[in-house]
């Protein structure tokens, strides 16, 4: 099982109208790893994520998640599959009419047959795991700060103990300290819960600190995939600019110090 990829994307083509965003893209995500997908704005990182989770239609190619081909799966299998992954949207996408606790309980209520007491306890446990206090549980999303919103959204994504978590720019809009905390949190949770994490990000720091492998998306397909070292050695012009740029260099310096 370890060798079989958890997510396997082959020859994927996605486009809107006349433009083709993803052009014959292939990518594998291994079990238990944190994969970071990078790419410039508008290059189709979020499109890739949304296509994998079935929010956008594809024109060509196959997507296999947890060994189930999305095209072959019937409605029931697809629903079962959706229960095995959690998604953290860029803006959190918390339901604004529900409290934090109800937001986390929402997937449980719909999918599991468990008592209210257990639901309350597990919801609070999840909230504490992502670093919130029981006092936050009765707040409404409008009362939360950006970092708290992301944490609640992560708790909701983890509500059913999924095997895969999709994170769409988890640290965007957070201050460096919160972003660092959030990265650490993802790493910890990945360790404790044995998650596979598919993360779309712009944040170089996240890439350096938490990702096991990085996939660079440019010109509609993956131009490089591998650990940080591969990225630094890659000759593709966009990847070079991205990782060797001014901001990249500050961090690269630190990495090479660590390596030496």
């Amino acid at each position, binding site marked *: 099982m370890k060798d079989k990829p958890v997510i396997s994307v082959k020859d994927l083509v996605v486009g809107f109208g006349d433009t083709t965003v993803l052009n014959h893209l292939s990518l594998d995500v291994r079990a238990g790893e944190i994969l970071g997908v990078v790419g410039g704005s508008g290059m189709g990182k979020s499109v890739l994520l949304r296509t994998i989770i079935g929010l956008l239609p594809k024109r060509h190619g196959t997507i296999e998640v947890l060994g189930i081909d999305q095209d072959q799966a019937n409605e029931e299998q697809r629903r079962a599959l959706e229960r095995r992954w959690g998604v953290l949207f860029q803006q959190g996408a918390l339901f604004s009419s529900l409290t934090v606790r109800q937001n986390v309980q929402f997937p449980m209520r719909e999918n599991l047959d468990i008592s209210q007491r*257990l639901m309350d306890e597990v919801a*609070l446990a999840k909230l504490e795991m992502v670093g919130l206090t029981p006092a936050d549980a009765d707040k409404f999303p*409008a009362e939360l700060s950006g970092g708290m919103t992301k944490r609640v959204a992560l708790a909701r994504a983890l509500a*059913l103990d999924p095997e895969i978590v999709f994170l769409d720019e988890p640290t965007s809009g957070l201050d460096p300290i919160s972003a660092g905390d959030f990265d650490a949190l993802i790493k910890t949770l990945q360790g404790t819960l044995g998650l596979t994490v598919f993360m779309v990000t712009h944040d170089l720091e996240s890439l350096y600190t938490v990702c096991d492998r990085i996939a660079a998306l440019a010109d509609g397909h993956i131009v490089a995939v591998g650990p940080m070292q591969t990225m630094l050695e890659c000759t593709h012009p966009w990847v070079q600019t991205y990782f060797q740029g001014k901001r990249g260099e500050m961090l690269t310096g630190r990495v090479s110090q660590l390596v030496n």
Partner: protein
Amino acid sequence: MASDASLLTAKFKGDRLELAAGGSWTAANAGELESLVDGVAQDAARARNVSIDMGDVRQFDTYGAWLLERLTRQWRGTGGVASIVGMPEHDRTLLKEMSGVNREPVQAPARENGLVSALAAMGSGVAGFGRDLLTFVSMLGAIGMAGARVLTRPRDFRFTSAVNQLDRVCWQAVPIILLITLLIGAIIAQQGIFHFRKFGAEMYAIDLVGILILREVGVLIVAIMVAGRSGSSYTAELGSMMMREEVDALRTMGFDPVEVLILPRVLVLIVAMPVLTFIGSMAALYGGGLVAWFYGGMSPEIYLARLADAISITHFKVGMIKAPFMGLVIGVVACAEGLLVKGSAESLGLQTTASVVKSIFLVIVLDGLFAIFFASIGM
């Protein structure tokens, strides 16, 4: 799927309870697992010493970990000893994580006395009504101030914005207003003819149609339509601008949001209401005429001659004088509610509903006040 027995089995050895766990301790089985765990917890009250063998557990997640933690915490709380054996290292990390959570007792929200909370709701309702009035008056004042400022510097008036709004609020509203008022006029005429016929007084139905439409119904129907159509869109527009901090951005750039956003919108409504009222009233009279012709058997010539006798320019003036004031009320309420929108989508929905309900209510109240006023000055 694992059966009940294999998830958790209990065996007593003297005062020592041995539990054997197996199968999937995961979310999918959580309901079943919880009842098993609760059952065992009851049994085990007499046992001093408990050991749990987790060796046969194939899958283990937060749900299973929490239920196990809940079980052991309960025993340790009563002074018992619980040991867990045969658990893989990886699952232990998760269990350890669980042992830190839910330590704080959950406080149940304090129950309130029903009578007290009913009184409190009534009180806050009255206070809210007062606050609403204050909001509208202050919005009216702000619009007045902005209007006075623009009068001294006419070039500051947002002419383009006003023309754009006029297109949306007035021109694009014409078809629906025509349709609705035509139908209302026709219905009033039909009812009038039907009931007056019993007394042989069908002719008076035309008086009814003319006076009622010009004085009251024309302007009221148009005002209600405009409140539902344009008032709600004003609230939603301003509300979403509040949500995305656009209004704050305007303010920091030194613009007065009332002058830039609200004044053109309200002025446009004040202009649009008389125009739409005129169009609506004419359409309603036309609809009345059609029904009089085809249902009442009165030819258009008779209808027009009778109408000319029945109505005077005063009736027309009464309707038209009211129209701009109704436009002002709808505009003020819609914009004031729009600025009250807070961060969430729910709040936007609430304020939009409130805007339509309050403006229709105020339009009808205003109509009543005008009726008293016109009666006392003999119009």
